[in-house]
């Protein structure tokens, strides 16, 4: 894991002291709310429905146990004992007091964490494959590049006041676990035939009011030229991105307006001018890469007797192993996914106690490594198969062993109208109602992979456009209604979902999802996923079933 150096620590100390002064001036009346708001937002502090919300950056979703314990401590001390993991792999505290915020930033800085650039029109937290360093599928460790991007983009003077917020993802394998094509820039690590490392560069993806899947603007960029190319993209965006209309200010609008080809041409022209001076020196890259050197793995047999015996003994553990354990690159190890989607719970929420349990497990069994996924779950990337039964038992005791990864109850949901000042409708309770319909684990497994994503407003923090089933809360004549879309995907086969039909009232949403699943089970052929069946049949049979009793 990357460790902050003295420069990083000094920056955080300065920034924290600066914010402490700004808060004091606001409370004393020396700063108006209009003057103060951009300053607090630059430090991740929003004013929401019930309190302030602090959004803490978790760079590329990577945490060590000390950091997770500190988040737990903050949750217990300054919040109501909870934290909420987000689709940007950040963590939000929803019950923060303004007067406490400087103390919290100091606490975060003590473990090399902060809330800088978790809001504002700047480069936000980078998403990376949560299986980094653990999956045999990866071309290169994406954390190396994500960390380099973090350092490059943090308080970057040229790119701190962009037309609008800017999000970058680094995917490291053919299987995309980062939603790269929905980012402003999606970088997909690749190797050329001659072995040279590089990236496919996709630009102009984004969700929100106008969803776009990012087109590829350069099929192969040599990795050592990454930063000059990023600079060229950001420069073209900074120059031509619209600042007159907040709804048309994202780079996706610029790319769509120019066309991917013309946008790429302008980037290439800018890149030519920049030359190699903006690229990362090899020595610096080597320094960063050193921080992610593979940890020492033991030589173990591919088959663990303890693991096999536990599966035979416990159907519950066998179910957990089937759904939550993923293949590791080293024999005798597994990647363990921890669901934050227990039936009836708030998607992405973890209590302080649960965070501490995960921190303990990472320390005892997981090489001090914890990841956050954009699907609002956690990962222990390096667990010995021999230890998996013990990890499962401890997770089960903490209410963290729900065996539903990628299943129908593994739902992304934004905080919605329960917390968010922007929301039109609730998301969390819709997710809870749907999950309750599929509480029967056997049935959920029979349904198989099904990604439901729920947003409480058109800003699409819950990624509804790219859900296999997407659900968008709207305010219709003063009541909570929900528009359903089908057939979206955030993965390598990314696509925007198609509207099912007229919006449904709150009470009918879970039932409609149940109906959609029944149609899928009736129509599916062979091993088709819900998404495959939908893409084959189109919307008609689904629409007919959901609206049958309306006609």
């Amino acid at each position, binding site marked *: 894991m990357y460790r902050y150096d003295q420069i990083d620590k000094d920056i955080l100390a300065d920034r924290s002291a600066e914010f402490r002064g700004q808060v004091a001036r*606001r409370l004393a*009346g020396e700063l108006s709310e209009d003057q103060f708001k951009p300053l607090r937002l630059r430090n991740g502090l929003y004013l929401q429905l*019930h309190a302030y919300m602090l959004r803490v950056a978790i760079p590329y979703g990577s945490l060590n146990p000390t950091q997770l314990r500190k988040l737990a401590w903050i949750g217990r001390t300054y919040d109501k004992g909870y934290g909420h993991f987000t689709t940007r792999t950040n963590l939000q505290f929803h019950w923060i007091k303004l007067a406490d915020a400087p103390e919290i930033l100091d606490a975060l800085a003590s473990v090399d964490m902060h809330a800088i650039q978790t809001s504002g029109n700047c480069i936000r937290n980078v998403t990376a494959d949560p299986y980094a360093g653990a999956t045999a599928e990866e071309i290169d460790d994406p954390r190396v590049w994500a960390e380099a991007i973090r350092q490059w983009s943090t308080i970057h003077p040229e790119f701190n006041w962009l037309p609008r917020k800017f999000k970058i993802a680094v995917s490291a394998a053919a299987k995309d676990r980062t939603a790269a094509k929905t980012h402003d820039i999606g970088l997909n690590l690749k190797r050329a035939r001659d072995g040279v490392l590089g990236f496919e560069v996709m630009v102009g993806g984004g969700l929100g009011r106008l969803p776009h899947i990012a087109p590829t603007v350069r099929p192969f960029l040599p990795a050592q030229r990454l930063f000059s190319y990023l600079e060229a993209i950001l420069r073209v965006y900074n120059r031509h991105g619209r600042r007159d209309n907040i709804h048309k200010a994202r780079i996706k609008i610029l790319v769509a307006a120019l066309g991917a080809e013309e946008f790429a041409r302008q980037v290439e022209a800018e890149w030519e001018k920049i030359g190699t001076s903006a690229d990362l020196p090899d020595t610096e890259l080597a320094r960063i890469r050193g921080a992610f050197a593979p940890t020492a793995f033991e030589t173990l047999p591919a088959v663990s007797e303890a693991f096999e015996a536990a599966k035979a003994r416990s159907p519950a553990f066998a179910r957990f192993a089937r759904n939550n354990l993923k293949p590791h690159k080293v024999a005798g190890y597994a990647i363990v996914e921890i669901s934050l989607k227990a039936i009836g719970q708030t998607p992405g929420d973890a209590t302080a106690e649960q965070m501490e349990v995960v921190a303990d497990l990472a320390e005892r069994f997981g090489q001090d490594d914890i990841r956050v996924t954009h699907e609002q779950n956690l990962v222990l990337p390096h667990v010995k198969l021999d230890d998996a039964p013990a990890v499962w038992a401890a997770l089960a005791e903490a209410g963290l062993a729900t065996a539903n990864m990628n299943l129908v109850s593994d739902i992304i949901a934004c905080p919605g109208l329960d917390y968010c000042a922007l929301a039109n409708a609730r998301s969390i309770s819709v997710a809870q109602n749907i999950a309750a319909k599929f509480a029967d684990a056997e049935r959920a497994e029979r349904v198989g992979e099904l990604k439901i994503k729920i947003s409480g407003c058109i*800003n699409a923090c819950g990624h509804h456009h790219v859900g296999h089933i997407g659900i968008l809360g709207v305010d219709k004549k003063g009541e909570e209604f929900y528009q359903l879309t089908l057939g979206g995907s955030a993965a390598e086969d990314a696509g925007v979902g198609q509207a099912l039909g007229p919006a449904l009232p709150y009470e009918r949403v879970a039932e409609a999802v149940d109906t959609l699943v029944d149609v899928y089970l009736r129509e599916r052929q062979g091993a088709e996923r819900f998404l495959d069946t939908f893409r084959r049949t189109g919307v008609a049979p689904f629409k007919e079933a959901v609206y049958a009793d309306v006609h």
Partner: protein
Amino acid sequence: MKALTANRLIDGEVVFWRNGQWVEQFGDAQLFNDDDPAGEAAEAHGKNQPTVVVEPYLIDLTQSQGLWAPVSYRERIRALGPTNLNHGKQADGGAAIEALQHAHGAARSTGRVDLIKRK
């Protein structure tokens, strides 16, 4: 009928106007007739307290179980707390809270548009 609400600056707590003071429970809020200029006067007074509250505004009310409740669902959530956990004011219970929990009406405040700018 209307009430005046805001978030308290120092902690973000949802507060309501009552005779020159800010109180935490909607049940304690001062109510204004729709045509009573005292409502707008209170709002103006609140806007002159920038070190006490952030962005005070009047909300519309409707009757519920013989008591008053905000028309807007958003305002009822502000007055009660989130619906997923009893972490808000609903934990205190009582008739006023129950009236809020059983009220029906609009999802969002009247007149609060362009919410993307409100963070």
